[in-house]
Every structure is written in structure tokens, then in C-alpha cells.
């Protein structure tokens, strides 16, 4: 091992962390209230809006933003692009935490939660359901990530034979760890294929699964960048700008493919007129595409922009914002005309999401400070391609 682990477990308490613990504890209270008294008591969901904030944010946006895990894993572990290795463990960690939150969020949203395990059984015809596939893939992928993480855990928790077992599992896990996200990232889009002639045609397309997949892939580098910049700030480190700059360049190419396919799709379905008709739908769609795809794509394409921390972070914020807006538009904006009625989340709905995010931040801090997640700084000289072998450091 290239580094020494300190004795014992550490968790540095700061004012912010106390705040996050408080937020999480309040959310736990709200979650218990919701599970005991039901969805009607804890949410503003109704017959017109059976899906709301939790599905949009905790599930659809949560899974998309966790896309940094599989897109980085694809580059590092499948294509063996070792120049991206320094960010691979951090990407795996945030993705794994993201999926655990998604599963908790999903559990909060199901009305008859004691039946949560039912879809694991195969009933006649249940495999035709898009949700069946989404549920299986997300659950399995969360397990795959936990097993991948086992290899990191047993460096710290000294057990040579367990470390060997987990390492031996890695190659098939790497394959599964890309196949499963490919399936469920796209299937989350397929969920809305059933809303044909209800979801606004700017978003409804038989190609929805492809758009959801591509956007979850290109949001990956942007999320890895933002997480990296936050970690750099929190731990007084240098951002991995040369690595991230190359990563977002890959993202920019995927954004370009996404954009071209979007335009072909809109043209094929004769929606260019609708695009500029000034309706709320068209304006939000343009905001999503111009502000969330075209502008950051151009920024990522310009070397001087993507090689500066400011440019990199700004374009990443726009990309992430664009994907968030896209999922919101599918769930809310695009369905509003067909569904009618009103929905605005109750404070308890926001509180659960805030609590889950607080839990993720706290777990991230603990894991980064006690396990080898972030690369050792001296091995990544600024402006130079990183070393073939990445070594890691424990920070905090």
C-alpha cells in the first residue's frame, strides 16, 4: 500500500456537519410520520398528480446525477483510460451514495411499503412493465456498487483474504456496473413512453430512453467536476483540472450527439413550430437545451475555458442544471396540460430530500476521511498527465 492509514476511525465535527446532522434528524422524523400516517398526510400528491417531488427529484434526478459513476467506470475500468483513474473512486463513492438515497426515496414514495419486495418476484406478465426492469436494475446496480466498494473497504479494514475475494469479483462487476446503468438510465425515459399524446411533444418521443441515457452519461463528467471542486474546497486540495478537463471533453462530444439526435427527433415529429410558439413549454424547453446543453457544450469545447477552474465549474453547473430542468420538465411542465389540477410539494416532501442530501454529505465526508478515495496529491502534478498508477490518500 502506498499510504498509511491512521489509527482508529475519525469524524471531524464542524458547525456545518452539526447542521447537516440536525437536518437529517428532522427528516428522519418526517419519514417516520410519512410511513405511519400515509402519503396523503405527508405530501400534496393527488389524483391529478400521482407522481411529484420525490419521484422527480429523489428518483429521476437522483439517478441521472449519479451517472458520474458508470460513465467514469466505463472510461477507467472498461476502456482502461488510466488518465481518468484519479477521479474513479470518488465517482464510484458519490454514485453509490446517490443510489442508496434513490432507494430510500423510492421507499418513501410507495404507498404500501410493506410490499416493497413484491416486484422482485416474477408474476405472470410483470416483466412487461418498464418499472419492473427499472426496479431490478437499480437494486442490482446499488448492490454491484457496494461490492465494488468492498475492495476499497478491505484495504482499510485489514483483511487480506476478503480484499482478495472482492478484488477477484471486480472484472464481472465492472461489466455489470456499466450494463445495468445503461439499462435503467434509459428505462427511466421509457417510463414516460406510456404518456404518448399526454406528455408535451417537445419531450415525448419513442426515443425518450436514448435521451435519458445520453443525458445521464454527459452529466457524469459535470457531476464529477462539481463533486471534485467541492472536495477540493473542503479539504484544501488542488482540483484535478487536467483529468477533469479531459473528462468534460468526452462529455461535450456526448452532448453534441444528444443535441443532433434531439433536433432530428423534433424535425421528424414536426415540432419546430411548437419550439418557437412562445408557450411556457417551449420557453422552458429552449432554456433547457440552450442553457443546459448548447452553452456548456461550447464552453467545454474551448480549451482555455475547460482548463480553468472557473470555466470548468460554470459549464458543469449549467450542464447539471440542464439535466435537472429536463427531468422536471418531463414530470411537471410537459404533463401539466394533460393532468390538470394543482400540485406544489408540501414542506415535508422538501424536508425528506434535504435530509437525504445531508445524509449523503455526512457519509461522503466520513468515507473520504477514513478510506482511500481521493488521489495522493504529489502523484498528480498540475498540467501533466497523471502517473500510470494512481495512489490514494486519506484526507481530513
Amino acid at each position: 500500500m502506498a499510504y498509511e492509514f491512521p489509527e482508529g476511525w475519525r469524524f471531524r465535527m464542524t458547525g456545518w456537519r452539526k447542521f447537516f446532522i440536525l437536518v437529517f434528524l428532522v427528516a428522519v422524523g418526517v419519514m417516520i410520520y410519512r410511513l405511519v400516517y400515509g402519503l396523503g398526510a405527508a405530501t400534496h400528491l393527488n389524483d391529478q398528480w400521482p407522481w411529484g417531488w420525490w419521484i422527480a427529484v429523489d428518483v429521476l434526478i437522483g439517478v441521472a446525477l449519479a451517472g458520474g459513476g458508470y460513465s467514469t467506470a466505463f472510461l477507467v475500468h472498461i476502456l482502461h483510460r488510466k488518465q481518468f483513474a484519479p477521479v474513479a473512486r470518488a465517482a464510484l463513492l458519490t454514485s453509490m451514495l446517490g443510489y442508496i438515497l434513490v432507494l430510500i426515496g423510492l421507499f418513501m414514495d410507495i404507498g404500501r411499503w410493506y410490499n416493497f419486495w413484491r416486484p422482485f418476484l416474477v408474476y405472470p406478465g410483470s416483466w412487461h412493465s418498464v418499472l419492473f426492469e427499472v426496479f431490478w436494475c437499480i437494486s442490482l446496480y446499488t448492490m454491484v456498487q457496494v461490492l465494488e466498494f468492498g475492495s476499497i473497504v478491505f484495504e482499510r479494514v485489514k483483511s487480506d483474504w476478503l480484499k482478495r475475494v472482492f478484488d477477484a469479483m471486480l472484472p464481472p462487476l465492472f461489466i455489470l456496473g456499466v450494463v445495468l446503468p445503461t439499462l435503467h438510465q434509459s428505462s427511466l425515459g421509457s417510463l414516460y413512453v406510456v404518456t404518448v399524446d399526454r406528455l408535451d411533444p417537445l419531450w415525448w418521443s419513442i426515443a425518450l430512453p436514448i435521451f435519458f441515457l445520453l443525458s445521464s452519461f454527459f452529466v457524469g463528467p459535470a457531476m464529477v467536476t462539481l463533486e471534485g471542486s467541492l472536495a477540493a474546497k473542503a479539504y484544501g486540495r488542488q482540483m484535478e483540472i487536467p483529468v477533469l478537463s479531459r473528462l468534460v471533453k468526452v462529455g461535450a462530444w456526448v452532448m453534441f450527439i444528444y443535441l443532433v439526435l434531439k433536433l432530428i427527433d423534433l424535425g421528424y415529429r414536426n415540432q419546430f413550430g411548437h419550439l418557437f410558439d412562445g408557450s411556457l413549454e417551449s420557453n422552458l424547453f429552449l432554456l433547457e437545451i440552450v442553457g443546459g446543453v448548447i452553452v456548456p457544450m461550447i464552453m467545454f469545447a474551448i480549451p482555455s475555458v475547460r482548463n480553468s477552474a472557473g470555466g470548468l465549474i460554470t459549464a458543469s453547473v449549467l450542464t447539471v442544471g440542464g439535466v435537472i430542468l429536463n427531468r422536471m420538465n418531463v414530470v411537471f411542465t410537459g404533463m401539466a396540460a394533460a393532468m390538470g389540477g394543482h400540485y406544489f410539494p408540501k414542506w415535508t416532501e422538501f424536508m425528506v430530500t434535504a435530509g437525504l442530501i445531508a445524509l449523503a454529505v455526512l457519509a461522503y465526508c466520513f468515507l473520504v476521511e477514513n478510506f482511500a478515495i481521493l488521489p495522493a496529491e504529489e502523484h498528480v502534478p498540475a498540467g501533466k498527465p497523471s502517473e500510470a498508477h494512481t495512489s490514494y490518500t486519506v484526507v481530513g
Partner: protein
Amino acid sequence: MKGVLVDITRCVGCGSCVVACKLYNNLPWSNAPHLGKDAVLTADNWTVVKEFDVSKGKESVWRFVKEQCFHCLEPACASACFAAAFRKTPEGPVIYNERVCVGCRYCMIACPFSIPKYEWQARFPRVQKCQMCFYRVKDGEMPACVSVCPAGALKFGDRDALLKEAKERIAQNPGRYVNHVYGEKEYGGTCWLYLSDVPFEQLGFRTHVSTESIPHVSERVTKWTLPVAGGWAAVLTALYLATKGSGGAEKSH
């Protein structure tokens, strides 16, 4: 396959069908209106009679539309459910099994007619909708609502025969009906069929909709799942092995 033909021109809006439904299915009388302009389907209102004030030619007329589950030939709710809580029976009714329901509410998103409703105030809510009195239909009886209609607006029978009769009524009464049987082709066809003398879009029906069933639309993408999974796994394995010599970056030592 059984069905019901609703002739809107014969409905007088008495609401007997609603009462029969409530009694047979033991549903509570809630605050949500079950008759009139504001009538709305809810977890307790499996059927309602909705009033529409429309103009027909020069005169202004009242029309009453009985709303309930259409009992699709290929139901979206059943194909969307990942626990198989909905089932299309050979007799026609699309029925719900609360025992296996997880409560995800994807059926409510998937239904093109927005029929399934939810017991929002319950601790463990059920999805609720018209079951077309499955146990009556299975025994060869007509649904409760049909059995009490005093105006002859509802007719129970084999769907094929009802469709034929609907077309005959249109042909034999020139000018009485709009030339459309709602439910014949909408989203692949439904067990409940409607005849009307005013255009359906004025009566709250969703018109100009797909004639392809929702499960069929969904199948256009889900059929790729296994081929993509298998093909992609093979491609990834090949890429993994082909590029393996170029590094071995995943080890930290």
C-alpha cells in the same frame, strides 16, 4: 369478451347507475360530487354521471356522460404494473388485486384515460377503479349499473355484438348520431363503447388519440431490453479484454 354499450342520447342523468355501483361495491358516499358538472371519479366514486351543457345546431342541450373504467382490450395499467396487481380477465373486466399492490402509482401515470384513483388519506392506500362487477359478469350477470338503468342507455353483452349493434344504430338513424363508436379503436379498443349525438370532444372525451394500445407502444422500447443487455455485455467484455494490456489502472498499488 363482454362489454357495455353506452348510448349518450338515451341517458337522462338520473344517477341510478351511481347508486347501484355504490351499493353493490359497498363504497362510501364521500364529498366528491358523483352527479352534475363537477362530478369526479375518486377512490370512492368508481362511476359518475357528468353533465355537459353543449350546443347542438341552434339549441342548447344537456348531455350526461357516465364515466368509469373503459376496460381496455390491452390495458395500460396491467402492462405498467411491476407486481401484476392488474389483470385483464377473459370475460372482459380489468381487475385489481390489492394484496400484491406496492402503491407506486405508475398505473395512474400509464392510464390514457386517467381512471385509476388513490386512497390518499389511507395509511396503506389502494388504487381504486371500476371492476366492471367482475364476479357478476363471471356468473353471466350484467354489472350492477347496467341492471338498474331505467332509460335503456346501458346495454350489456358480447363486445363484438355490441359493436355491431352500435354501427347499426348509427346506420338506421341517419342524423341522430355522430358517425363514431368511441372505444372501438381508441388505444387499441375498449370493452365500454359509446354512441353520441354531439361530438365526443365536447363531452370530455379525449379524441384524436392513438389507435395503438399503450402496452404496444411500450413494447416498442421494452423489447430491446434483453438484446441490449446481452449485446452490450458482450461488447463491454470485448473492450475490457482488448484494452486490458494498455494499463491496469484500477489497482492502487
